[in-house]
């Protein structure tokens, strides 16, 4: 029993150390081994909209080291974007755009709008790093930062339609889009490009919250 506990702690530490490591070492992710060939991939038909992000069943980890799956967003209105924390140029700007959205919302809407930051750099963006990033940017409890395996990250990027090119000198070229997800996990609004007027996004959030 003691051995099991120790093993679990070690495994958990390994998971926390890097998100890009194969999730097979994580107790919580044990089911993911060969998940391709298990039949649990698709949620029961009819339960989730065809276009919903909730069809993604990969395992993620938050900035607190806790597990996260897309259906955790069920019933919430979420503003989502892909980032990487070591980004020197575009990400601070996309962060500024996201904060601009947050601060421009009226108080009632802001209290009910969730923000999700998905890292495109799981090799470097560990849960600890994400937590530090959260502090640097003074993000409150409405913000969830998540990382996963390379595979899950690639799948997420492709569902969102984010293009990512890893640069040889470190870092990434990538598209900059802010997504607004409805309570059903369907993308109902996109804000493409940096420094955009958030009016459309604010309106979309407001409508979805009704």
């Amino acid at each position: 029993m003691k051995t099991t506990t120790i093993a679990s702690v070690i495994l958990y530490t390994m998971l926390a150390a890097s998100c890009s490591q194969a999730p097979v070492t994580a107790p919580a992710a044990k089911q993911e081994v060969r998940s391709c060939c298990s039949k649990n991939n698709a949620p029961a038909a009819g339960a989730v909209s065809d276009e919903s992000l909730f069809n993604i069943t990969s395992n993620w980890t938050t900035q607190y080291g806790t597990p996260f799956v897309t259906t955790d967003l069920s019933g919430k209105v979420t503003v989502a974007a892909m980032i990487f924390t070591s980004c020197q140029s575009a990400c601070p700007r996309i962060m500024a755009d996201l904060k601009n959205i947050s601060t421009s919302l009226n108080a009632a809407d802001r209290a009910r709008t969730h923000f999700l930051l998905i890292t495109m750099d799981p090799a470097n963006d560990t849960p600890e790093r994400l937590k530090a990033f959260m502090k640097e940017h003074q993000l409150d409890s409405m913000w969830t930062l998540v990382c996963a395996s390379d595979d899950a990250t690639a799948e997420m990027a492709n569902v969102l339609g984010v293009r990512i090119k890893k640069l040889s000198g470190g870092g990434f070229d990538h598209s900059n889009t802010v997504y607004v997800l409805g309570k059903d996990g369907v993308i109902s609004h996109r804000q493409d490009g940096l420094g955009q007027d958030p009016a459309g996004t604010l309106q979309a959030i407001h409508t979805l919250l009704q």
Partner: protein
Amino acid sequence: MKNLVFLLLMICALRAQSHVADTFGRMAPVKGGKYLPLYSSDSQRVLVKPFSIDVYSVTNADYLRFVMAHPEWRKSRTRKIFADTGYLRHWTSDTTFDTRLANSPVVNVSWFAAKKYCECMGKRLPKVAEWELVALANERMADASRDKAFNQWVLNWVSRPSHKVLPTVGSTFRNYYGVYDMHGLVWEWTYDFNSALTTGESRGNSSLDNTFFCGGGSFDSKDINNYAAFMRFAMRSSVKANYCVPNIGFRCVK
């Protein structure tokens, strides 16, 4: 007696199956090497580690086996977020298609479907660098990028309209690695196809826009092979992962 008949039938069935299964899952080793991505300078060569690649594109018969084992990938059950309405549109039902297409490459499959298929085979989709490295080979050489006749042949295929009925796998040529149909049959999905960025959507002052226009510079080079490679790049940059296109299939690597 009854047992004997049964046994004979079994043997026949096995033999028939082995004939069909001839192309299934066969792989060829690739010793790796260096690949120079489009719009890159010499210093940006990508080191490709040794890997194995499917000798043939995945066929309709192969793919049928997959959907039989994984009903969630039948066309009536696939979610739009993972495969658009064109998914397996050339199949007559969830599990049937024109039998003449059994050994032709499966097309009208999304990146998500292709990725899942490879995972279930214990394989994965090739990265762009891996795919392009194998695609450099003609019948005799690992790198035929300076072979004019070869480049012209590839270019001719690229500029022809698609076949009305897709030929079977193995109908073009066997390259240096023993791999068939890298050119001349279908386009193929790659794991990181979405790394092809052609618009100014990246960070404002990054090298991206520059590289895009600088790409024109590399065109004047010795390497007209770049032209077909450019078309593949353009194709990759124009598709989304849930698109199902009549001339895009895939093969896996390990």
